[in-house]
């Protein structure tokens, strides 16, 4: 990371203010007015629309291996996703992924 201290604080402040405004939005400012259905529909998909795209390149081309696909990290990603899909349990999925990566890195 090449950000200066002041720069990092500026990002924290802007993110804090923006996040607070999002949380305060309807509760504080807009009040009890009905929202258009299409807007609620779009908002429903924000986490699932952002997170997969953020991690996909990190999984396929990890920086730790200079951007070359790495069997240990791919296996860890598959284990995380698989356990998460089956159990619907976030912590179990993290445990499966971290465990797989730990064992494979230790072996390799």
């Amino acid at each position, binding site marked *: 990371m090449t950000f200066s201290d002041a720069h990092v604080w500026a990002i924290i402040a802007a993110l804090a203010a923006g996040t607070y405004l999002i949380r305060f*939005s309807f509760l504080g400012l*807009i009040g009890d007015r009905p929202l258009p259905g299409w807007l609620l529909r779009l908002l429903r998909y924000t986490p699932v629309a952002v997170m997969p795209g953020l991690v996909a390149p990190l999984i396929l081309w990890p920086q730790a291996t200079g951007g070359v696909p790495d069997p240990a990290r791919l296996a860890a990603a598959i284990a995380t996703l698989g356990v998460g899909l089956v159990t619907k349990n976030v912590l179990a999925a*993290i445990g499966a992924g971290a465990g797989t*990566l730990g064992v494979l890195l230790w072996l390799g």
Partner: protein
Amino acid sequence: MPSSTPVIPPAIPPRRAFLRGAQGGAPFVLVIVPFGLLFGVVGTEAGLNLAQVMGFTVLVIAGAAQFTALQLMVDNAPTVIVLATALAVNLRMAMYSAALVPYLGAAPLWQRALAAYGLVDQSYAVSALEFERNTALSVPARFAFFMGSFLAVAPFWYAATLAGALVGTAIPDGFGLDFAIPITFLALVAPALRTLPHVMSALVSTVLALALAGLPYGTGLLVAAAAAMVTGAATEALLERRQ
């Protein structure tokens, strides 16, 4: 009061409501502690100092957005992209905010301002369920319940992050820590893939983000996320029309 709803608990005073909210939030401590630890460790490893790590956790208080911002900062993405992407992750909270208006909209402004700070995934999930079920709750009792559910979790979030930041520098390289964020996000997304629209949205996000990875400044991710949101919403609308 609808009499068809089974077992409506009687109206309760705010103090009791606060305790019940805290009871509802308490189980989430088990989820929040590992996340806080992880953010403390990863943030410190990425080069943030202790105050900055805690600044994220106390002021932003949104785990997924914090991890998103951190990852993009590690990649030296431009500030605008860091902010836009991390805030996009938090847009779901606008939905939470809207969903609570029927229940807390009549509370005084200072209470709504406080509740907005405490509007996290956990407090929303617990409170929305309770408000829907327990129609006898007064507005002050609802506010107390909400704050109880938040305050049962928040101190653990702060403390876990602090603990993670303090031990973070002691963790050696080659531990695979670079992969902590991908694993965390995959673990968050997998249980959310419960309907076809969610799966379609995640697929479009993945494919487009990979295809557009060459675009400068992480703009590919923003395009992918926007397209994925529209895909999810459109698929949902289509399925509804078919029924």
